[in-house]
């Protein structure tokens, strides 16, 4: 058994050596017939080909395949390092391979970023596609509700129910616009120029559904149409719409050029921008007009005679001026009338302006919290000076004087009666 094993081992080793010998001879012979020029030429062709592939690669998987190819090329030609060092002078074989490998790593990492951004974009496009339908249904629902309210001969109770639904529907529509703004910001806000260029070159033409530019146009135009229909809404509704418009314009200023770059396709980019800028400006003018009118009207209805205003600074100046005058008048005249005027303003200011409008006013930069605090101070000041003069102190003072007098009389009397008693005792 041992002998057989030994014999087998020897024969196996001999066979292996023979194979190695033949292999070595073949390899040497092949090396002998190889032209250095061909080695140089083939290396250059393969290297240039990989380099060109890197220039045009547009996805991570392909880029990783190219990197494998680069590593393979290095492995295959490492035996010719000396020759290649000479022919590549002043570069070296190792230097060249490192250079292309570094470039491929850089491209892979850039493509990974683009891939992430593409995924975000795909999600946005899906969202926009559903948003598109959702927005239309919200707008049509709001319109039909408004028409129903206009034509309604129903009972007051039923009508107020419809008005409530109408306002809820408008709120939903505005919430929807805010979510579009968030989505567009999240996708395009930090998008790199390379990713943008990639989208511009490849993706934009493929996007039919979920075109963000169409969505922007549609939202602006729908709001203009809505405002053109002379809606009768509460001041709170107008303030909310004012804030939505402001945020929408701000979003457009920041990501508008990117959206145009990606989605405008063959259209003239300047024309597209001009058209949307025009729509947004019209929307802004209309919503601002309604908001200021509604605010002025709300103060009028409460018989708070603030001077008319048409912008944020005007509104603050008007309130400030009104309070300054009211405080001065209260100081000079006072009285019950001034007290009533104060109470009316304070109630409107605290229960309506601060409770229902302040959030939108701050977001829309109509009246920021510093200015609200400044108005609050004036209202407090007015409160102090408008208080009716109190007679209680005078009465108490009078009572106190009387009490003292009475006490003094009692004490004097008590003293005199005591002296009389002492005299009588001495006489007796």
């Amino acid at each position: 058994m041992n002998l057989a094993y030994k014999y087998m081992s020897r024969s196996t080793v001999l066979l292996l050596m023979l194979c190695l010998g033949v292999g070595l001879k073949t390899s040497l012979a092949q090396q002998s017939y190889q032209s250095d020029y061909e080695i140089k030429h083939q290396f250059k062709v393969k290297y240039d080909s990989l380099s060109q592939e890197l220039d045009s690669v547009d996805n991570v998987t392909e880029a990783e395949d190219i990197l494998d190819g680069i590593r393979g090329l290095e492995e295959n030609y490492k035996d010719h390092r000396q020759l290649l060092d000479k022919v590549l002078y002043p570069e070296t074989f190792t230097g060249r391979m490192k250079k292309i490998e570094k470039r491929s790593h850089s491209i892979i990492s850039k493509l990974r970023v683009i891939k992430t951004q593409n995924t975000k974009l795909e999600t946005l496009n899906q969202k926009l596609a559903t948003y598109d339908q959702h927005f239309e249904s919200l707008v049509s629902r709001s319109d039909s509700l408004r028409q129903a309210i206009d034509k309604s001969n129903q009972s007051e109770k039923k009508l107020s129910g419809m008005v409530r639904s109408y306002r809820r529907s408008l709120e939903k529509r505005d919430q929807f616009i805010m979510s579009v703004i968030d989505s567009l910001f999240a996708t395009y806000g930090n998008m790199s120029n390379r990713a943008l260029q990639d989208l511009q070159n490849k993706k934009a033409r493929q996007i039919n559904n979920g075109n963000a530019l169409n969505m922007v146009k549609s939202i602006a135009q729908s709001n203009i149409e809505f405002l053109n229909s002379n809606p009768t809404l509460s001041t709170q509704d107008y303030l909310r719409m004012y804030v939505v418009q402001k945020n929408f314009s701000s979003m457009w200023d920041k990501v508008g050029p990117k959206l145009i770059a990606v989605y405008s396709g063959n259209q003239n980019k300047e024309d597209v921008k001009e058209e949307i800028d025009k729509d947004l400006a019209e929307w802004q003018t209309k919503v601002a007009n309604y908001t200021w009118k509604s605010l002025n009207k709300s103060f009028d209805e409460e018989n708070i005679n603030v001077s008319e205003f048409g912008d944020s600074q005007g509104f603050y100046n008007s309130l400030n001026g009104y309070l300054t005058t009211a405080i001065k008048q209260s100081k000079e005249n006072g009285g019950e009338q001034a007290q009533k005027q104060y109470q009316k303003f304070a109630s409107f200011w605290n229960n309506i302006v601060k409770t229902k409008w302040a959030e939108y006013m701050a977001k829309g930069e109509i009246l920021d919290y510093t200015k609200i605090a400044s108005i609050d101070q004036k209202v407090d000041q007015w409160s102090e000076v408008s208080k009716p003069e109190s007679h209680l102190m005078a009465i108490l003072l009078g009572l106190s004087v009387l009490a003292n007098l009475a006490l003094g009389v009692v004490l004097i009397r008590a003293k005199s009666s005591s002296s009389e008693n002492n005299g009588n005792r001495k006489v007796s």
Partner: protein
Amino acid sequence: MYMLQKAVKSGLPVLILLAVTACSSSLVIQRVNFAQPVETVLNPDSKGVVHDRSQGLDFSIMPLQYAETQDTSSVTTEKVRMIRDKEGYYFITANGYKNVYVMKPQAGELKLQKKIHVSDDGIMHPAFNQRDPNVQLIDRGNNATYSLNENGIKKEDLSS
């Protein structure tokens, strides 16, 4: 006068000799390695001239074509292969040539140093490799290799 005559007789020839020697001495750099790492492959133009832009060398291949074919009516040579060895000799051949021409560069010319006969049938797919101290010729048509220097084939066909 006598002194002058004596000085002239004894010193002048020495001075003249020194002056002549100084003028005729030239600066020589020795142990120069002219070896070109990889051969150059060139296609002749319509006039049979090859242009090696990397080495800054232009010459007509027609004298070599005539030596091979005794015909210069048209350019029949394709892919001229050329390599310079350590000593500075150019080894030139082309597809189908029977010989390798060892040319020595001189002022404005390449002079034949040695015509090395390789094959009666012609070298079908020749290629030169620099294999210090020799130049290796391979014929990929028949897997033959030859070790050459300016004097001829040094070592016969390794494969045979």
